[in-house]
């Protein structure tokens, strides 16, 4: 059974990161052997591996849940806990790169001293990158927590991040 359940369809429609994972799974032809590659995509997209995403991948690849969990806990690259209260994912796919993703990342680094993959010392902010989240029309695209920000500018992103951090 390779079709998504209704619940995941709804989630898919809402969450571009899940779409990214779905695309990766399809590209790997639902091969169980591609588990690690798919987990990489998920880890990069979310900054960690939420249980709901693990369950989704497990179902799609028809793997025993314990196999997936075993793999995730074996490699230090994967993490099961959120990397920061707020996460900012900057798409560095071709379209977004061309439209200035690097400038956004540079400004984030200037303002918050965080590089992709890092979390602030107070755990309030985590930065990650992904290769094309499938929203090239919106380039450069940034996902701040669950919100997709289209045609983002560095200044706008920094302001929004600041607002999030103050709010929490």
């Amino acid at each position: 059974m390779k079709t998504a359940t209704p619940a995941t369809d709804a989630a898919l429609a809402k969450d571009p990161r899940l779409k990214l994972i779905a695309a990766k799974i399809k590209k790997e032809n639902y091969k169980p052997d591609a588990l690690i590659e798919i987990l990489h995509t998920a880890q990069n997209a979310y900054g960690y591996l939420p249980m709901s995403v693990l369950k989704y991948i497990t179902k799609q690849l028809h793997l025993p849940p314990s196999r997936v969990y075993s793999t995730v806990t074996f490699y230090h690259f994967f993490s099961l806990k959120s990397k920061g209260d707020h996460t900012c994912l900057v798409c560095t796919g071709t379209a977004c790169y061309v439209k200035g993703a690097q400038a956004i990342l540079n400004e984030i680094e200037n303002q918050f001293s965080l590089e992709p993959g890092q979390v602030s010392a107070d755990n309030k902010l985590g930065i990650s990158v992904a290769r094309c989240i499938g929203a090239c029309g919106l380039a450069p695209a940034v996902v701040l927590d669950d919100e997709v920000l289209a045609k983002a500018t560095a200044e706008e992103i920094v302001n929004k991040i600041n607002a999030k951090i103050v709010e929490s």
Partner: protein
Amino acid sequence: MPKIAVTIDDKKLDVDAGKTILEICRENGIEILTMCHLKGLTDVGACRLCLVEIEGINKLLSACTTKIAANMVIKTQTEKIKRYQNITCELFYAERNHVCSVCVANGKCDLQKLGYKTEMDHIRYPYLFPQCNVDTSHAWYVLDHNRCIMCTRCVRVCAEVEGAHNWNVMNRGNKVRIISDFDTPWGESETCTSCGKCVHACPTGAIWPKAIVQGQLEKKPEMITELIEKRKMNL
């Protein structure tokens, strides 16, 4: 099966090619200590007890995962092997919390038997006293991580014989633990069929049925071997 000549403990033998050193030794009545081996399951060489010395190879190899080869000269009972087996046995006891007097497997436990076999009289390593859970969520069985030696016999029997894949291993180093599903309580597992095979495969008091009293545990791992062999017969 073609025959090959080997020497084990100074005895010349004509044995089947293609088998493991452990299989050959067992067939010829040569005793080899094992923990993670259960006849019929895939051998993984996890416990490091079945070590043998082979002439021309300067490290000890596990008999369960090493195939016999022509003209091998094998020794199974050297001082070096015994020393390593003693260390391994002591490390098992030091790694988790083995308190035999209050364990369901007391008197019926393969780890205890190993302690007697290696004549363990003290443990030279500091005990780690790790914090270990006891999962009692399953209706019939208990998994007590305090008694687990990570032999993975439960993992393999569940995957290879039952086909349910409930068990696996999480983390690494001394944080490794047996898990069901997504480290889900056993009773909430979506894959466990409650067949009880892991109960019989487990060599210690780590997995046991609830309906027994302390010291009354009766495990029949040979039942699993028999099942595997019967399945291979084309009836």
